[in-house]
């Protein structure tokens, strides 16, 4: 019951924030005059000036995609070198060593792609300087990259010009006007609740029992806020948001969830404004929440009813809930809720250990990453939603006897080729790399739980990588050369192929003249479409991943009954 109150309170808050924030993002993307221009314009102009960027320059989809790729590549290369020499740089109170090459490769891809799969331990694998100029920096820039490419795609679907905007200017504006201000506010709230923000690395205390305990602190709060706002998910500490310093109270737990949900939900409203079809956006919004709520309730139920694994211990309750890997302050209800949010919104932070979830409770985050479209991460999520929407329109739109059209623009061979490829990438990456991993000894040796659950660990790792989520079944040994390279590639392709294909779709759609809707048009703004959209997402997802899910979590579940 308490989890339901929490769930619906959060949804209520998000619904309230969606409109103002969505409108705000719309104003940012559309370069509308704002009252806050007085504060932000000088900052932006300063950045344009010292970097030599002309914010007026218009880019077509190819130029936009190329600039996006180039900026991301340069950021990855520079941060890679920082990680490789971090021990020689200042601000290293915990004495972290230089990062090994495959791990550094994995880490920069992981953070640049908004995935945040962490194969290093935050406590001793990375310096404070790296936490800031690599991790925090990439957390901001990857979120900004996702958001601005989404903006470009939205423009392609709504404008009559073939230009999609200016990547640099979009990037500067979204960072300065949206990400930084919200992060600052969130940082202060988190510190108030107990998240440290200091450069004193270690505190050694004398415990009551007379022993010593070394407590690692650090600039945690600045990382923690953008980690969730940017749907990044990488933790300052190994235990991520289950660590009391990252997530000390029920309130921070809720705030972190809200931060994750904030931008992907609001962006759908922005989309409605951009395409001048708020009802279509509303239909998507509600449909996604329906799937989200169903899965959230399912996960909470599973963790509260862990079944025979506990009942055979004959301890209190019948049973009392699956507490393994969970924190008492979050309990067995808010933890799975967090797991649902973090995978639906493609963040990847965890406030409990998903590896120790019940088979079906753990299947929920797995399925969400496989679907990869239930809101999703900042910007990238909307891109996947648009991808699935176009697929839905194409598959069922024919049934009204017209060439399928989306937002008045016909979906023809060129677009459908791109969409088909984009749909293909995700299952291909997950299934192919999982199969390869279980076939090879070097891969299979990363598995730490037996049989079905072991397979689930592998599937989880690659679903997380391909969906750019970043959460893990943490028992899985990620930090091997093989896994660093495999997941690095999966994250890379999972992110860039999809975004570039979607930019190409937008570029191609932008060239078409939109037809005004008529009674003969396939409508995308009513409940029927919502239902079809849900069905297509679930059926396409189910058809693709059903065998894998059956062999993993479902077989595990059945083997335990």
């Amino acid at each position: 019951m308490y989890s339901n109150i929490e769930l619906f309170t959060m949804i209520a808050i998000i619904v309230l924030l969606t409109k103002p924030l969505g409108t705000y993002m719309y104003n940012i993307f559309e370069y509308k005059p704002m009252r806050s221009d007085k504060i932000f314009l000088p900052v932006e102009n300063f950045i344009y000036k010292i970097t030599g960027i002309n914010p007026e320059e218009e880019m077509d989809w190819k130029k936009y995609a190329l600039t996006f790729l180039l900026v991301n590549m340069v950021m990855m290369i520079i941060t890679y070198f920082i990680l490789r020499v971090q021990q020689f740089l200042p601000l290293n109170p915990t004495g972290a060593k230089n990062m090994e090459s495959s791990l550094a490769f994995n880490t920069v891809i992981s953070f640049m792609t908004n995935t945040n799969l962490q194969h290093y331990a935050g406590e001793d694998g990375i310096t404070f300087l790296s936490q800031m100029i690599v991790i925090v920096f990439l957390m901001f820039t990857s979120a900004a990259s996702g958001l601005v490419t989404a903006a470009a795609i939205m423009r392609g679907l709504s404008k009559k010009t073939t230009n999609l905007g200016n990547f640099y200017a979009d990037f500067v504006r979204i960072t300065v006007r949206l990400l930084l201000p919200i992060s600052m506010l969130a940082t202060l709230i988190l510190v108030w609740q107990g998240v440290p923000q200091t450069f004193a690395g270690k505190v050694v205390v004398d415990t009551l029992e007379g022993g010593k305990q070394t407590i690692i602190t650090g600039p945690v709060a600045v990382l923690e806020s953008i980690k969730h706002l940017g749907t990044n998910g990488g933790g300052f500490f190994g235990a991520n948001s289950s660590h009391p310093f990252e997530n000390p109270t029920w309130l921070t737990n809720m705030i972190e969830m809200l931060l994750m949900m904030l931008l992907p939900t609001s962006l759908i409203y922005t989309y409605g404004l951009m395409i001048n079809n708020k009802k279509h956006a509303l239909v998507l919004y509600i449909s996604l929440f329906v799937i989200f709520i169903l899965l959230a309730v399912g996960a909470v139920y599973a963790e509260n009813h862990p079944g025979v694994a506990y009942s055979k211990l004959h301890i209190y309750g019948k049973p009392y809930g699956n507490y393994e890997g969970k924190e008492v302050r979050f309990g067995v209800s808010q933890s799975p809720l967090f797991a649902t949010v973090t995978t639906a919104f493609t963040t990847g932070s965890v406030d409990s250990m998903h590896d120790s979830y019940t088979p079906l409770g753990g299947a929920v985050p797995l399925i969400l990453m496989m679907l990869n479209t239930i809101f999703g991460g900042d910007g990238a999520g909307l891109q996947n939603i648009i991808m699935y929407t176009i697929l839905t329109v194409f598959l069922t739109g024919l049934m009204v006897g017209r060439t399928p059209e989306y937002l008045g623009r016909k979906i023809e061979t060129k677009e459908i080729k791109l969409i088909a490829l984009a749909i293909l990438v995700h299952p291909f990456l997950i299934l192919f790399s999982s199969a390869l991993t279980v076939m090879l000894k070097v891969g299979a040796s990363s598995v730490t739980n037996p049989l079905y659950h072991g397979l689930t660990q592998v599937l989880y790792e690659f679903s997380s990588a391909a969906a750019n989520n970043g959460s893990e079944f943490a028992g899985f040994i990620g930090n091997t050369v093989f896994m660093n390279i495999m997941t690095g590639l999966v994250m890379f392709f999972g992110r860039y192929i999809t975004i570039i294909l979607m930019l190409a779709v937008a570029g191609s759609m932008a060239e078409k003249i939109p037809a005004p809707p008529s009674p003969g048009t396939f409508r995308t703004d009513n409940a029927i479409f919502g239902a079809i959209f849900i069905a297509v997402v679930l059926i396409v997802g189910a058809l693709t991943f059903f065998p894998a899910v059956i062999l993993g979590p479902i077989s595990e579940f059945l083997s335990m009954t």
Partner: protein
Amino acid sequence: MKRKREIKTWSREIVVGAIKNSFIKLNPLYMYKNPVMFVVEVGTFITLLATIFPTYFGSTPDEVGYNALVTFILFVTVLFANFAESLAEGRGKAQAETLRKTKKETMAKLVQSDGSIKIVKSSELKKGDIVICEAGDIIPADGEIIEGLAAIDESAITGESAPVIKEAGGDFSSVTGGTKVISDRIKIRVTVDEGESFLDRMIKLVEGAKRQKSPNEIALTTVLVSLTIIFIVVVMTLYPMAKFVHVRISAATMIALLVCLIPTTIGGLLSAIGIAGMDRVTRFNVIAMSGKAVEAAGDIDTILLDKTGTITFGNRLAADFIPVGGHSKEEVTYYALISSLKDLTPEGRSIVDLARKMGAKAPDDILEGAEVVEFSAETRMSGLNLKDGTIVRKGSYDKVKEYIGEKGGSIPDDLDKEVEKISLLGGTPLVVVKDNEVLGVIYLKDTIKPGMKERFKQLRAMGIKTIMITGDNPLTAKTIAEEAGVDEFIAESKPEDKINVIKREQAQGRLVAMTGDGTNDAPALAQADVGLAMNSGTMAAKEAANMVDLDSDPTKIIEVVGIGKQLLMTRGALTTFSIANDVAKYFAILPAIISETLPAIKVLDVMKLSSPTNAILSALIYNAIIIPILIPIAMRGVKYRPMSANALLMRNLLIYGLGGLIAPFVGIKLIDMIISSIFGM
């Protein structure tokens, strides 16, 4: 009388030919064009190998029987798909055959440069040659009349037995090879070379010899290929993953799963749907130049229609009798009838019809000794001088006014008002006079063809905008437009108006269809997304259009739109059905695969199938026989009635979406019951 173009799908000839062709099409070089079924063919080959060398393919020797069965079912699946395509093609060929019969070798009277006539074979004619045709001759080639006028029997092509008049110059000058001159003598300039005649192209089109995949078909194929690749990945990766959790899958089972999952139903029927769609247009006596044109017809947002001949009959017909000057309606009706008894113009006949309908009756002997006054351009009045001396006239308002003035009669006060009213409505008033008395006015009106109003209503429900083009003045045009229920009209139109309207609509993202027959329609026909030319029209119009109506019925554009929509709907419906089917197949096959290792998986076997092997075979058999079961729908198209997109969607979703989810559960269970009871397996 229309000759029937109905060709039976299941005629013995066609079916036998189709069976033969389904085997010929097994050639991988051909199968490759249908990627989904090509995968099935490759799968068949692999299971065949697994039958012969079981141990190399993860099977135990005692599974040879099972492997052989899987091979057989897969083989039949491919055949079924080929059969569907061949059947559709067979129908096209049969259509072509009937057309080809009209293309006989004939003798032509070639006019040589010196003016003499030489008899040559029609096949020797070249473009630019001039031939002479006289009554009884078959026109040897497509051409244009450059001299003379003739009645021509075009029934060989149109099925319409009434002869049509063709003459040099103007819009009725083109003739088609294979048609027959019934009267008079004409000189024709041949406009095409041998083998490129209109008939030749028609034959090729309906035969499907030059069939190219249409844009939407290519797009859909792309999605199907993408799904197929996904499922290949799913099945291939399933093997190592299953092995990891100690589940053994043989090659035959993997291929069975793959074939069940890839969209074979729609993959097998897709080309049949396309061919059958074209065929439906043909049966409607419309020749579409490409599948693209038929698809575009389904997408039409705006239709441009000529008023005269399309929306209205083009003749002014009596609509009412209005008394003036205190006379009764009966009186004016009666004398209007009398005045027109001998008037054989369409207007006259319509007055008689309407008056009789309204109860007026002329005495049988009224015409005895009566003198007929015919209409003349000068008097602009007509009527009868009856035996008893009564003079009955009807005529135009100003002439009647003059006439009454001469006769010393008086004009009733309300005549002006009534006449003006009719004019304002876009009608033509005819004043009825008895002796020197004005009785009333006949309201002649341009009459809308029956059923047009309903059609426009349907079009509006379908979201299609109609624009009427007319040379009439705006007032008349508005009246007709409102009455017919068209959405927009262009009055006093000039030839270039059509193309401008089309461009304007297209600039707003709409697809436009229009009909036309004249040479000055040609640019507009070419500009339109769907241009339907009348077969009676000029060659230029026919060349510019992407469809030609052999019956020359301009209203057919509306049916063509319906056929286009039906074609797209059929594809969408069967795609949805095909994909929805997969859910049940999973529930049949996956538990069967895993149950050996993990018996608890049986809870997922919701159909409670008799054994794992039977489950896989049942799913596979279902997957095969659903193709022939759906052939009739693919051929006929899903049911289409004009309605809004939403209503259509709901209907099709229920039948093909929900139906597609449920049908295989029932089907597979049934097949399983049959297998297990008959073979006791």
